[in-house]
């Protein structure tokens, strides 16, 4: 729901415009591979799609694209998710898809709920082998990409780098609470209290940042 709500502009195209055999369907058919009997776009194919859409692989757009196409894991999209995603976005060609993704990235600035949904889903993409936590390494790599110009995330990434010997993983709770923290914390961190419900890692983070 949140996903759809952020795409008011892109969703103006009606469902009826989506027809089998369009450019994107053709593209899927050409690039698909078969995994466990299911048609999927594998990471290489996804990278080709990003190239076709002229997205920088180090930017947020490929992540948003993966999310919009209901990717099952990092760089992997199944046919079902692909069709559903395109259907929801209401696009049928590459240029339309590019515009829809760019509009979504733009919508993040104003629609905090939309970004929250995207941010939370990112955790699932970063998990390895369905583990409950993600590695701090992944978090350090991805956080600056998806949360550019957000000082709390920048500081947190610095903290993770400085404590890479102690902090090896980030749990889902820590990941999700980080977004809430970024929205609550004053620049001087004066409003942070260890008695609040924040995960204990943030106590260390604030101590480190204040030191």
């Amino acid at each position, binding site marked *: 729901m949140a996903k759809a709500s952020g795409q008011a502009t892109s969703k103006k195209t009606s469902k009826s415009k989506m027809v089998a055999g369009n450019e994107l369907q053709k593209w899927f058919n050409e690039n698909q591979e078969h995994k466990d009997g299911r048609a999927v776009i594998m990471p290489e194919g996804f990278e080709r799609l990003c190239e076709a859409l002229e997205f920088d692989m180090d930017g947020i757009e490929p992540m948003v694209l993966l999310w919009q196409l209901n990717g099952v894991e990092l760089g992997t999209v199944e046919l079902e998710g692909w069709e559903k995603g395109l259907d929801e976005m209401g696009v049928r060609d590459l240029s339309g898809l590019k515009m829809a993704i760019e509009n979504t990235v733009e919508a993040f600035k104003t629609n905090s709920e939309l970004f929250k949904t995207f941010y939370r889903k990112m955790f699932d993409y970063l998990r390895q082998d369905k583990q409950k936590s993600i590695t701090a390494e992944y978090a350090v790599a991805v956080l600056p990409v998806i949360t550019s110009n957000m000082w709390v995330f920048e500081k947190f990434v610095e903290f993770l780098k400085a404590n890479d010997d102690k902090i090896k993983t980030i749990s889902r*709770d820590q990941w999700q609470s980080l977004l809430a923290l970024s929205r609550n914390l004053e620049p001087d961190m004066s409003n942070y209290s260890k008695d609040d419900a924040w995960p204990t890692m943030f106590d260390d983070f604030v101590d480190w940042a204040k030191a």
Partner: protein
Amino acid sequence: MGKSARSKSKIRNRNVRRATIFGPVEAERIQRLAAKQQVKSGNIGELMDTDEPAASSVSAATDDVEMSAPKASKSVKKGSKNKPKRIVIRNKKGRIFEFLDALERVLDALVVCRESMTYDEYMTVYSAIHTCQEAPGYEVLGLVMDTENRDIFKLVQRSRILYDWLASYIERVLSDIYNESAAIRGENLLNYYIEQWAHFQRSCSLLSSLFTSVDKQWIEYKHDRNFNYECIADRMVQLWYDCFFKRIASRLVSSAIAMVDSERSSTAINGLRVTKLYKSFMELKPLNMPDIKVNYHEDFGVYIHYYEMPYIAAAIHYIDEKTYSLRASNQMYKYIGMVHELFLKEEERAKQYLCSESLIALQVCLNNEFLIKCIKPTNELAVQIADTQCDVDKLQPSYSLLQQFEKHDVLEHLQNEFISRALRDIFQSCPYSPENSSVSMSGFSLNAITYLSDKYELGKAAIGMLFKENPTFEKAFDSMFKQLINSEDIRCRFKVDPARLAAEFCNLVLKSRSTTEGNFTHLLKKAMNVFQASSSKTTFFSFYSLHLSRRLLNSTSISMDFEKTAISMIYETALSLDNGGDLSIGGLAAVYFGKYRQMVSEISTRNEQLHDKFNESIGYEASVRVLSKEVWDFIKPDYDQNVVLPVQLSKACDQLAKYYSEQYSNRIIRWQWLYTTATVQVYFPNSKSRYAAAGYTFVLNAFQVAILSLFIDSLVASAVGYTLEQICNETNLSVERISMELDTMIRAKILICTATGIHLNQAFSSKHQRVDISHTKADVKRHEEKWLEYEVAKVHVEYIMADVVYLMKSLKIISHKELFAHVASRRGGYFMVTMHLFKVAIDKLIHKEYICRSSDDYSIYEYPT
């Protein structure tokens, strides 16, 4: 012998008095009456003549009352212009009086108390009142009843006139009485009042009876006038109170207080007068007056305001004057003593002069006026006394007063003063924390526990003496001590939990050779004082377990009997704190009590079969004990299991392990090398000491044996020596362990370090033939203790996790702070639930998906359905 009332002399004297004293008064009264009735004045005789009825008058209800009523309507017509007749009454002597005159005489006797009255006179008037009210054709106060028909309206009218007349009479007479008292002062005024009061009390009932018959029409009258009185007599009593007692009261109070003040200045007074006065005030209190309110000056009820307040104000003024100089010069001991002394005197005085209902008012006022002001200095003194236990007697009086009203601020002041002073002193007494100084933990625990326990004992004794009749203060002191022990200040400053210090202290006592049967219990009690106040019971139990394990394994305990006594004492202390419920301290203590007992039992008994088997395998005298892992779980697991031991020892160990496994359903033996000691006989060929020939006896731990055997085995082959790396490889021990043991052996000069490597000291010599270097190093101990701290924290987190799940199952949704409060109160007796531990537990539970955060608010936890 007194003469009869009918004796001639009495009659004569009465007649004389009537003529000379009462006669003029009566004449005046008659004139007043006549003026009111608009008849010409005259003497009694004239009036009687005028109103005298016909000789054939009809007898009234009684023989004494006659009414000149017409026999029939005809005779009325015949009479002189239908003129109404007056009611007259005749006494036994035949004298005839007009009704109102007679009534006034009786009332005079009742109210004014100036004239005696006989029973006959009273009864005559009583009957007349009854008769006159309804007698037709006769005039009463200007109103004539119809001759034939009883007119109810007129009956009512006549009653009303009578009521009004009575009221005006009482007002007038009492005003006269009050005016009479104007010139009287001091004790005489009191005397006068008391006489009046006694008379009033007597007369009230008579008045009430006298007017019973006229109360028939009272309801109408009461309704019209909006009165609350049930009868005319009550109205008259109220008038009496208003016209006399109320008016005279303030003058009386001043006089009485002046007398009490004289008594305070040691002047003899007639206390009975004052007592009677205050008692009468209380009895006089009208029913509609509010109850006494005694909160403070401003809240006094009306009654207090008039009577008690001046008395209390005088008492306060007196005490203030007496104690001012002491308070001004800050001589608090003397001040408190004197205040107490004066309080007692005032209380005694008040019992005599005030009504019992007013004593509380006095007490509260004095407490408010004097004690509240000196709570702080009193508490300062109390804490000083708790420190030194001197002068309790001097302070006891003040506290005995303070505890009367158990105000929260008394306890609060005492608490703040005690805690701040105790903290200041303990930091002076124990300035260095073992965490950041060279002070040993045991030395520090000795100082700290001794200080804290002595503080408790002294304080408890002082408080016991000061507040012996009030358990509230004793409980409050226990609570203060708990606050002190669990205060963040102590934890931050010491960097050690006081519960752990208590366990260290126990360890010291149970290891010290200076502990005797005589002082053992006393010393252990000190640790128990801190233990029972500490909120970290699990910390105490854990560290006690560790030290007990060490003492038993290293045989450093002074006596097994002492160990058993200590265990029982801890258990009993814990049981005494038990508050029931599923998380009781008793339940926790029982678990540890069982463990401790089993530890002592396992270390005391030897499995003979195993012992023989081991000795048989090893070929020399050895002892082995099998200890249960679940009981001895507070000693750090030994990670150097694969140490390469001398072949014979290693082989014997393997054989024993195999044998044990076969005998006891595949149980596995895990060797605790750190606590293994061996006595080794070593000969040094180059040694020139006197023990060279006999050889030295070394007491070594298993690791040292492994290292030493390496050098002894290679003595012939290697003259080059070993490097650290080689020793590590050969013995299979960690570098840290090797470094530690090598350090000990080099210091003991068993090994020497040269440029080529580490060698056996061939020329070893020592003053003693027996050298024991097996003791566990301080570093190892510290490491082990750190491990235990971590383990204890882990256990605490597990407890919290269990509690959170338990609570969340029923609560479903709850805020972070509320959940913390629930858990903290639930686990309060076991250990102090810190926010950090709580958050760690929450992190784990969220990670394990037992609970989750609300998607809208990160500080709300939800229990997933």
